Each structure stands twice: as structure tokens, then as C-alpha cells.
């Protein structure tokens, strides 16, 4: 029986449900000392004095470092725009690290950090895109002199004539709210730098990438630098980045000659973990009276926060690459600006640039439909890229859509949601004082996944874009899979074991998957960009196939048959057509290590293989989501009542886990649409710096999902899998906002920026606008 496609329970769970998981903060080697930071309470200012005298003298304090103690350690990030490990003469956002304390206990470290006195002369702050690009705004970096640090202008001379030639035209500006990724585990760093090298335990999504970077940074050899990412409590893209503590904590361990651990508090996490989204966009669209989209111009303003991160600077490239979504638009032109602001730096958050793209184009399509009095379902059908036009070259060199069936997903959505009945219910609710307003929204979304083909990740500082998979058969016939993917909740241990079990013919229970340790996994890139199944899964599949072919040589020798006649099933090799003639995997495995048992030309220990799989193209998962919102007519409280989800991620390895990925992504998408936004006041003071103010939804805030699937395989790998990790976060926000705008359309509402807070909706209901 094939395990690919089966609802198999997870191998990860027994440890995690018994409290026997091992997260970084669970580890404290003998002699561990503890770190606390002194942070800026100003968004922009000059540091005039840092007095550590009292802190240094306190009980248990081992070290208090300021910028002068790390003067020999270079800053991080983009050359010319480096982020210092500790702020030296200037601070640029609230929360920026100014000093670090190490003490014998956590409590002593925190007490001493509170005793460090910092004087800052405030400078005018620009915490938003608009304030940072305003005339006369103080530049964050005087050497650069301007807050727009990179700009790709829209240079296509044909776009404005194409827009002018369109019978109808619409222009709009939209925002995509700054979100805090908020994995429930914060960042934790534990470093033990001894005479024979550095071991670094980190809450990270890319251990080899971190190992390579840390080794280069300190001039260490990679063989004596070991990074371990044990159980990691969620990442959502925000644990790909290199934050200063990943380098400071090893430096402290080196200096103190003992293990040093930093456990971020939640309040620190909200300020220090890279935020996501944080865009504004200007869009012009030209169309005709039938609703055919003719030309699209998209100019993205990306808020990079106080320090530019390579991934953060790449977000608008991803957004504009996917600007046209699943629609055939004859002329598309894009541009963007990267902008520094006095706020937490911005980088990847689940979807990373694609939720923004889907939000813009799916809102635009609804606006055009509204303008023409067309049904939102109908306008989508009229503009879909037809199923027979794949591979489909887009306006972007990066994106050649691999495969898709957008109309098929929409058909399935209308199978699982009773649209005509909902339309009737909505109309009846408007004037019924006992009912909330009802709105119905659609999103037929498309994203780019399976990062990636050669060149996809190198620009973000990665060694390469492949993923490694290694299969090693043990003498007893069990197998260990080593993957360069670094899962942190996705269930990759289980899915890779399913894939390997099918190829090897070894029982699923006899297959282990190891990850997250540079000392055991050959090389790796990591888990991000919805790549684990499509890229790492394919590498495991290919490695397992190679091992099986080699094992057949040994089995054929033992069975005195031709290798071509050997097949493997249920933990045994047999001769085709003569099933009685068989030898168990355990015997083949055992003898594969014994010179005297091997056929000529087969070396002992040959039953292992390593593959670095580089796909030929990205994959493009898609789907059709339908959302029903209810809006309280008095208070403006907006809730998602129903969420209908049709995903097309190609081949599904484990439907239970795929569904889990969709639910989680949709939950984060609804959260962005309704609840979450990192807010700053005009001086750059964060207004939502704890989970009291930043509303991560709980169980009562989210609906029950109704889900289905269509399957359009990708030609990029032999599994046919496209990836599913980010889909929900791409499709949900436009579906929710389209539904809310639909609910309020009788009041003349045409767009609402996220999040759809009760205040905003109340204002639209009762005060004629926000």
C-alpha cells in the first residue's frame, strides 16, 4: 500500500504531547550563564551616555557589554546599511539593543539590566512609510541621506499608453498592515564556545545557513562550528533571519568561557523579531466594459523598518512578481521602493510578499466587478489564465507558472458553498434588525512556492537553492533519513518517512528522519518558502530510489536471480512472478555490510545515498476561497462565520498534515484581516507591544473551516507536489476583506484597509467613513 497520500499519524507527536520535546530553552548545560538586554525606549535618538557602573557591581553579574565592547564585531545585513550588534551612537527603533548583561541566574541578569542607565537625546522619528518619505524627514542613516534606500522605477514605456487606451480605468492606494509573526516560542540562543569549537543551539529555520554565516563571521572553520535547531516552536518565516543575539551570545560565551543563554521575553519578541507585510501600494488598472483586465500598473512602497534585511528588501520583488495573480492581463508593469522607518525591521512572514500581491489583485478584481455591476465570480472566470496555456510566461522573468486549473478550483468552491442561498440571506439581512449584516467574499489566489530553482535563494545569502536528502540503511534493515529541511511544526519527519517508505519498501515504523543538526545532516538550506515537501521530499525520494536499486543487486545475488527481476514490497525483496523466492530487507541490509556476502563489484556500506535536489522551476500553488462575514450593525464587530477553502497544491503526501497547514495559514490570514496590526504613535512608540494589545486570535475568534481540494500536479518534481505551507495566509485576507466590503457595499463602501477593527467598521456604519 502506498503511504504517499495516506492520513498517517505523526512521528513527531509522542514526545511533544508528553512534555518530552526539547526546545532550546529546555537546555541548560552545566555552567550556563544567562543574558538580559538593555533596550532603547526611544524610536530615534543619539545615545549620550550609558552608565554600567552599578550593574557591573551587582551580585552574580559576569559581564556588561556596550557597543565599545563589540567594536571589533561587524554589523549585520546589507553592506552600507549594517545593523550593529549593539547600538553605538544612535538608536533607530524602540527595542534596539544598547547593552547586554550576563549573570549567573536569569533574575540577576534582569536586575542588573534594569540598573544600567542610558541617556538618549531624541530625534524626530518616522515610524511609517508616509512619515519617512515626507519632505524634510530626518534620515535614519546619515551616510545614505535619504530613507528611500532602493528604488526600481516603472520604466516600461508601454504601460501608460496601455492604461490610457483602456475603455475604463481605476486607480487606488491600499495598505498591507505590519504584522508580528508571533510564534508561541520566542527566540532563544544558547552558545557553548569551547577550545574545540562552537556549538550553537538556536530557534532557527535554517541551521546550515546559520552555521555557515556564524563561522564566516567569527573566522571559524565550519567543521568546528555546530548549529543545532532542536524542537522549534513555530517560525512562520521570522526564524530565518539573523538577529544580533545570534552573534552576541557566542561572543559572550567565547569571552566568559562558559555556556551562555538568551531567552527572549514575549515583549522583547514583539519588538525584536522581524515583522512582516508593512506595505503600501499604488495601483492603476485598465479594463473594458465586459470586465476584461487590459493593463495593470503596480508600485509598491515597502517599509523595511530601521535596518534593511536582504529578505525584507526582496519582499516587494516577490509581491510584484505575483502582481497579476491567476489572471491573463496583456500589459503589466511594476516598480517598488524600499524605505527605512523608525520601527522594527521587516522581513519574511508566512507568505512573504505573496499575501500582499494576492490581496491587491483580488481586491482590484472585486473593485472592477463592483464598477461594472458584475458578479465577483463571473469577473474571475472571464479573466482566468486558461488551463491549456501552461507553462504560462508572466510579466516577470522569475515567474513562469508551472500548471494550474483556476476555473476548476472555483467550480469546486461553488460545490461546497451554497452561493445563491447566501446571496439571498445577505439581501434579507440588510433590513432585518434581528440579523447582522452578511457579506460574501471570494479570493481565487495564486502564489509562488517550492523555493527553489538555482538562483532562487542565493540572492538572500544562502549557499544554494537545492535541498539535501540522505538515506542510510542500518544493518538491521531500518533506515535513517537526513534532511536539510529544518521543520518546526510542519510534520516533515512524517511526510519524508512516508515518501521514503514507498520507495524503499521498508516499513514506515522502521524509518527515522533526522534534521536540525549540522553535525549529522550533510548540508542543508532549511525550511522556508513552502519548499520542504516539493524540494526536500523529492531529494529523499531520489536518494531512496538509488538505495533501493543498489539493494536489489545484493538481493539478486542472495536469491540467485537477475537484479532486473527483483521487486521490493513489505520489507522484503522477491523475484517477480515467484513471490515465494524472497529475502527480507533485514537480511539484505545486514549482509550489505559483510564483504563475504556481497556480489562482486558491490562495496560494503553501499546502501546509502545523498541527493541535492534542485528543481527546474518554482511551483505555483493556487486555490479558491469563499468567506462569509457577519457584521454587528450596532458595534461594527466583524466575525468570519464561514470559511470555504479549496486548495490546489498538486500531490498531497499526507492529507491530515496538508489540512493542518491550510488551517494554520488561514487562521493567520483571518488574523491579519480582522485583528492584527503593529501600531506606533507619531513618535515611534509602539502601541501594541504585548499580547494584551496585539490581538492574536484565540479559539473563539476563529471559525470552523469547510475544505476541499483540486489536484493539478507540478512537472517540477516526480512527486507532483507544489507546497502548501503558506497558501492559507495568501488566500484568506482578500477573501475576508472582500466579504466585509460586500457586506457594507450598500453604504457605498469600496475598500477598507486591514485590520477591520470594530472602530473602523463602526465609523463606516454610523459616521459615513473612517
Amino acid at each position, binding site marked *: 500500500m502506498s503511504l504517499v497520500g495516506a492520513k498517517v499519524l505523526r512521528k513527531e*507527536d509522542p514526545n511533544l504531547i*508528553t512534555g518530552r520535546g526539547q526546545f532550546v530553552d529546555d537546555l541548560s548545560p552545566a555552567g550556563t550563564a544567562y543574558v538580559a538586554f538593555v533596550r532603547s525606549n526611544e524610536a530615534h535618538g543619539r545615545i549620550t551616555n550609558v552608565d554600567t557602573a552599578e550593574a557591573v557591581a551587582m551580585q552574580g553579574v559576569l559581564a556588561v557589554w556596550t557597543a565599545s565592547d563589540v567594536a571589533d564585531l561587524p554589523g549585520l545585513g546589507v553592506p552600507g546599511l549594517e545593523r550593529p550588534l549593539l547600538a553605538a551612537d544612535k538608536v533607530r527603533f524602540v527595542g534596539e539593543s544598547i547593552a547586554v548583561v550576563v549573570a549567573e541566574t536569569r533574575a540577576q541578569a534582569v536586575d542588573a539590566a534594569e540598573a544600567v542607565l542610558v541617556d538618549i537625546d531624541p530625534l524626530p522619528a518616522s515610524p511609517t512609510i508616509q512619515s519617512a518619505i515626507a519632505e524634510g524627514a530626518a534620515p535614519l542613516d546619515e551616510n545614505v541621506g535619504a530613507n528611500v534606500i532602493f528604488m526600481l522605477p516603472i520604466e516600461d514605456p508601454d504601460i501608460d499608453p496601455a492604461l490610457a487606451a483602456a475603455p475604463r480605468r481605476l486607480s487606488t492606494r491600499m495598505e498591507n498592515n505590519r504584522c508580528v509573526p508571533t510564534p508561541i516560542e520566542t527566540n532563544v540562543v544558547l552558545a557553548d564556545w569551547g577550545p574545540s569549537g562552537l556549538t550553537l543551539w538556536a530557534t532557527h529555520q535554517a541551521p546550515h545557513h546559520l552555521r555557515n554565516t556564524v563561522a564566516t563571521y567569527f573566522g571559524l572553520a565550519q567543521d568546528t562550528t555546530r548549529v543545532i535547531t532542536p524542537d522549534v516552536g513555530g517560525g512562520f518565516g521570522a526564524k530565518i533571519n539573523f538577529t544580533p543575539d545570534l552573534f552576541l551570545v557566542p561572543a559572550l560565551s567565547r569571552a566568559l568561557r562558559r555556556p551562555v543563554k538568551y531567552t527572549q521575553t514575549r515583549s522583547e519578541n514583539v519588538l525584536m523579531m522581524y515583522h512582516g507585510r508593512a506595505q503600501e501600494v499604488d495601483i492603476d488598472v485598465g479594463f473594458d466594459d465586459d470586465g476584461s483586465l487590459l493593463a495593470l500598473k503596480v508600485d509598491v512602497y515597502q517599509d523595511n523598518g530601521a535596518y534593511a534585511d536582504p529578505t525584507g528588501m526582496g519582499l516587494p520583488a516577490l509581491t510584484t512578481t505575483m502582481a497579476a495573480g491567476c489572471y491573463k492581463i496583456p500589459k503589466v508593469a511594476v516598480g517598488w521602493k524600499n524605505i527605512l522607518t523608525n520601527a522594527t525591521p521587516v522581513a519574511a512572514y508566512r507568505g512573504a510578499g505573496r499575501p500582499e500581491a494576492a490581496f491587491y489583485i483580488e481586491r482590484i478584481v472585486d473593485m472592477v466587478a463592483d464598477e461594472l455591476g458584475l458578479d465577483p465570480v463571473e469577473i474571475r472566470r472571464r479573466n482566468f489564465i486558461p488551463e491549456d496555456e501552461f507553462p504560462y510566461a508572466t510579466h516577470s522573468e522569475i515567474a513562469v507558472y508551472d500548471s494550474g486549473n483556476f476555473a476548476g478550483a472555483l467550480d469546486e468552491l461553488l460545490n461546497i458553498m451554497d452561493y445563491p442561498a447566501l446571496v439571498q440571506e445577505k439581501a434579507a439581512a440588510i433590513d432585518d434588525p434581528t440579523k447582522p449584516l452578511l457579506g460574501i467574499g471570494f479570493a481565487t489566489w495564486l502564489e509562488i512556492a517550492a523555493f527553489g530553482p538555482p538562483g532562487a535563494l542565493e540572492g538572500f545569502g544562502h549557499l544554494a537553492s537545492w535541498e539535501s536528502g540522505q538515506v542510510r540503511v542500518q544493518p538491521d534493515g531500518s533506515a535513517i533519513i537526513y534532511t536539510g529541511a529544518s521543520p518546526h511544526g510542519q510534520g516533515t519527519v512524517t511526510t519524508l518517512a512516508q515518501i521514503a517508505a514507498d520507495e524503499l519498501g521498508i516499513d514506515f515504523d522502521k524509518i527515522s528522519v533526522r534534521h536540525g543538526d549540522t553535525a549529522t545532516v550533510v548540508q542543508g538550506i532549511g525550511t522556508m518558502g513552502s519548499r520542504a515537501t516539493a524540494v526536500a521530499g523529492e531529494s529523499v525520494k531520489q536518494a531512496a530510489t538509488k538505495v533501493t536499486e543498489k539493494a536489489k543487486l545484493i538481493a539478486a545475488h542472495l536469491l540467485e536471480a537477475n537484479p532486473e527481476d527483483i521487486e521490493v514490497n513489505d520489507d522484503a525483496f522477491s523475484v517477480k512472478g515467484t513471490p515465494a523466492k524472497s529475502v527480507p530487507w533485514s537480511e539484505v541490509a545486514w549482509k550489505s555490510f559483510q564483504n563475504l556476502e556481497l556480489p562482486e563489484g558491490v562495496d560494503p556500506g553501499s546502501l546509502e545515498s545523498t541527493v541535492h535536489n534542485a528543481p527546474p522551476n518554482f511551483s505555483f500553488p493556487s486555490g479558491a476561497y469563499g468567506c462569509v462575514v457577519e457584521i454587528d450593525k450596532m458595534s461594527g464587530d466583524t466575525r468570519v462565520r464561514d470559511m470555504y477553502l479549496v486548495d490546489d497544491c498538486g500531490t498531497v503526501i499526507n492529507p491530515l498534515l496538508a489540512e493542518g497547514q491550510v488551517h*494554520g495559514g488561514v487562521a493567520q490570514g483571518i488574523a491579519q484581516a480582522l485583528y492584527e496590526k503593529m501600531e506606533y504613535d507619531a513618535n515611534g512608540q509602539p502601541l501594541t507591544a504585548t499580547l494584551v494589545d496585539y490581538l492574536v486570535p*484565540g479559539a473563539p475568534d476563529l471559525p470552523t473551516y469547510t475544505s476541499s481540494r483540486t489536484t493539478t500536479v507540478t512537472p517540477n518534481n516526480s512527486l507532483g507536489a507544489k507546497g502548501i505551507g503558506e497558501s492559507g495566509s495568501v488566500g484568506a485576507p482578500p477573501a475576508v476583506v472582500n466579504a466585509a466590503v460586500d457586506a457594507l457595499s450598500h453604504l457605498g463602501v469600496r475598500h477598507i484597509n486591514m485590520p477591520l477593527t470594530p472602530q473602523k467598521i463602526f465609523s463606516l456604519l454610523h459616521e459615513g467613513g473612517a
Partner: protein
Amino acid sequence: MENRPSNVPVTINVNGNALSAEVEPRTLLALFLRDDLHLTGTHIGCDTSNCGACTVLLDGDAVKSCTVLAVQADGRDITTIEGVAGDDGSFSAVQEGFRQEHGLQCGYCTPGMIMAATALLADNPNPSEHDIRHNLEGNLCRCTGYQMIVNSVRWAAENPDGVSVSVGGQGAHS
């Protein structure tokens, strides 16, 4: 700063074992469990009592151990995630429910969720979806979107004896 109150002796019955220790009066129960008793299954996810990752049972009631001082637990019974499984290692019904229904992904919030669900089922052995969602309101999960957590608790309600599974054993779900 140096004149802190002296340490206080406490005896707390943790997972059936009476444990004595001297603690700083300001020590949170969550940190006492993790740092002093090395029971690291109880996780900490925030500093404002919002996330519930640190939920344990205090005399049978679900409490957030970051809002209880270790000295307040003196003489009382604490159950942590490490004390939930049977003596033979068999999973409780709630643990098994989370496994069967994919009620966890990264697993970081899971110990708190399991403790909160255990307390809920002790009070209300047959909770509706509404009951479950509202009783788990104080426990945040960022991975699952909650539906499969609801399903997990329903599974436990419908299978109060759990199922006997050897640790590490696997089986097809359906």
C-alpha cells in the same frame, strides 16, 4: 537591590511527588518548575498571562503557572504535562486525542492546551464545540487555527479511556 527577602522553604506535591525546596519569594511557579525541578514540559510563551503555554493543574484546576508564585503552591498539588500519562507510559485520552486529530504542529503550546483540556473534561465530560472554544480561550496556538484542537478534545470526550498505544508506535489514521 541587594537586600532581597531571604529564601522561603516550600513543599509542593508535583505529579504525586512531595518536593521540598528553598525559593526566592518572587519566583514564578512556571520558572520554579522549569529551572529548579527541570520539568521543562511546561512552556513559557509570554509575560502577560495571555498565551497559556504554562498552564498546569493546581489542586485540579487549570492555572497559568506564570501568574502563580511558587510560594503560593506550598502544600498544594500540581500536575504538569509530565504527570498526565499513565504509569505505564500510556497516553491520557486528551494526549491521544491530540495525536489522533492532529491537534498540534510545533507542539510548543501543546502542554498548556492538554492541561487546559484535561481540566475542562474533568468539569464537563461532554463539551460542545462552543464549550471547548470558550474554555480554551486563554490558550493561544499559532499553528493549527484551533479546529483540530477542538476535534482533539472531542475525540478525548468520545474516547475517555484513550487507546493503548506503545510509545513510538504508529498506525494509519484511516
